[in-house]
């Protein structure tokens, strides 16, 4: 051995610095991340006949129901955009967010058997959730684009514009929000599971404070005093900006987007820090 005797590759100790995020470790396990995403994708449609087609079924049925109930029955305006395409834009974004959030929030509980037996950077697990759902989101986005083109060809006034360029950034924000919030909740539920119940009924309710089934313009028109509540939700800016870019309608403002970005960064960072703190001993309490 040429190394001096007091050189050690690894020191296992009780606590580490709060901001030691071990991102380098995560990078060296990137193959695992890919394989986990692949596992999720492949196992999703194993032993089904329709296979990946199932990715389309859920959003299609959802927007049909939304269109029937919220647009036709309740008469909520959709900014002069055809119902299905309006709802689909909100739904796929919301679904991506809520899947990331709920799956991440139970990541320790769901994978405790595996995480209790072998070490790898724990952050890989929530990241694999985000990427797996990104694939699903991508497939659903195709559906959205097909629907969009259909309405454009059939002569509806839909005007995609340069703000589409913001789209990748918006996706990043949704993922970060879902991931960050999910990690905060997952850390909080390893010892006391109370919060898990809040998530199970809270997330579907949260959808109604986001502009999924109604445009922000309607809220401002009807309840100007309460519109701040909707704007307060960082997802509102994301969905509105997205609709503005693709459909040419929506309440877009740089202020709102900037606010959302700031909230997202804070949540994501808090999430990672808390997650890293909890991952070291969650095995003992989960």
């Amino acid at each position, binding site marked *: 051995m040429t190394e001096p005797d007091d050189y050690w590759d690894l020191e296992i100790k009780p*606590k580490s610095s709060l901001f030691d995020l071990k991102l380098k470790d995560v990078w060296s396990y990137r193959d695992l991340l890919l394989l986990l995403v692949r596992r999720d994708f492949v*196992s999703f449609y194993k032993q089904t006949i329709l296979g990946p087609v199932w990715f389309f079924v859920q959003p299609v049925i959802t927007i049909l129901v939304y269109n029937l109930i919220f647009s036709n029955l309740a008469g909520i305006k959709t900014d002069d955009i055809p119902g299905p395409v309006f709802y689909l834009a909100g739904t796929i974004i919301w679904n991506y967010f809520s899947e990331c959030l709920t799956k991440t929030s139970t990541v320790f509980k769901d994978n405790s058997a595996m995480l209790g037996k072998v070490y*790898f950077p724990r952050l890989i697990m929530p990241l694999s959730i985000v990427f797996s759902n990104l694939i699903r989101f991508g497939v659903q986005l195709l559906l959205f684009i097909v629907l969009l083109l259909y309405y454009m060809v059939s002569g509806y006034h839909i005007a995609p514009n340069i703000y589409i360029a913001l789209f990748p950034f918006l996706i990043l924000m949704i993922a970060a929000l879902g991931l960050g919030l999910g990690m905060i909740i997952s850390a909080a539920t390893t010892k006391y599971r109370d919060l898990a119940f809040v998530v199970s009924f809270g997330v579907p309710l949260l959808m109604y404070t986001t502009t999924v089934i109604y445009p922000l313009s309607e809220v401002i028109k009807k309840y100007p005093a309460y519109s701040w509540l909707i704007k307060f939700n960082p997802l509102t800016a994301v969905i509105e900006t997205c609709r503005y870019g693709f459909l040419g309608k929506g309440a877009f403002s740089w202020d709102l987007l900037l606010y959302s970005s700031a909230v997202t960064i804070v949540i994501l960072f808090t999430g990672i820090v808390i997650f890293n703190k909890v991952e070291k001993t969650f095995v003992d309490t989960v």
Partner: protein
Amino acid sequence: MAKAIKADNLSKAYQLGDFGTGTISRDLERYWARLRGKEDPFLKIGETNDRTSKGESDIVWSLKDLNFEIEQGDAVGIIGRNGAGKSTLLKILSRVTSPTTGNIKVKGRIASLLEVGTGFHPELTGRENIYLNGAILGMRKAEIKRKFDEIVDFSGVERYIDTPVKRYSSGMYVRLAFAVAAHLESEILIVDEVLAVGDAEFQKKCLGKMGDVSKGEGRTVLFVSHNMEAVSNLCNTGLLLNNGEIAFSGSTYDTIAKYSVVADEIFKSKITHHALSPDVTVDLFEIDKSEITTGDHLAFNLTLSCKTNNNFQSVAIFIYDEYDQKVSFIDLRSNDLFMVSGVKTTFNISGKLLHLPYLPGKYKIGLHVQSNLLLKDFFGLLHFEVVQKPMTDDILPYPLHVRGRTEIDYSFTIK
């Protein structure tokens, strides 16, 4: 020789009991103490880890102030009773959980096999699972690809490699899982009793592979097992844990010998004041040895007492093996018994079992009691172990399973 692992005052505390509304106030208290930079108030009152006795607090030290060093290239057998802290130590070393105080320093990459087949997905094929499992264990994809054929070859399930593993037999599953793990490239290999699975042929193959790992390739191996034969075959040094502390460390042979002494505590060779019924009590029941070799004698001493006069129709000692097969029934009926038990409330039977023809293994002793008030078998009162006779010449004994059920004395001549 360079050190591979060095532990300094390593301790790990666990909280016992249920987590509920009661624990949150204490958590807040602990948090408040930490915030002020004080010592955690609940860790101070921790006790040693003895699972058999009830403690005062619900904090238990699974490991307490462990200090040890392991040289590079050593194969270390970690032994101890259930709950001695072996698995906790391995968990800390594999970074699944972190210590409460103290630290461990490690040189080189650690591969830990606390379980084989971690992360296997039943819906995926053998091929897909090799990649996934390999990556979970810390291999890069290119590395797995390079070793893929070797892994499949070692596992011996080539024909099923493109079938989902949920269709595998449990043996095939384990073979595949171990094959992946056995091909990890690491300086330190940590193995928890994973060899208890699979058929004999495969177990041998695994042991062989592990032997190669430590002897041939100069890697450090930590091996936890209750199988002393495997430990003595594989390891050159031993570490004996007892109640979360190091009871002994040294050569494998010495460690195993010390372990038998510790283990004796559970190999009860004597019980006192053991109530069989509200009326009948075993005042004393003992055997003179807890470990004999085949053909040895075993003396016993039994005192029974009753609150009222019992007429005992029968008292018998029965001996059964670790598979709960009764191997002997020692009938203690006699006219004396009928006479004595009718008039006295306390009486003693003592005697000797001659030339026990048992194969090596663990045995338990029970009592069969029949009186006008009681008719019952009582199991597992005493324990003893039969060990292999020392070998006289170079001829190795046959494995146990081919040797039948009893050992008899014999002599022979060859002309």
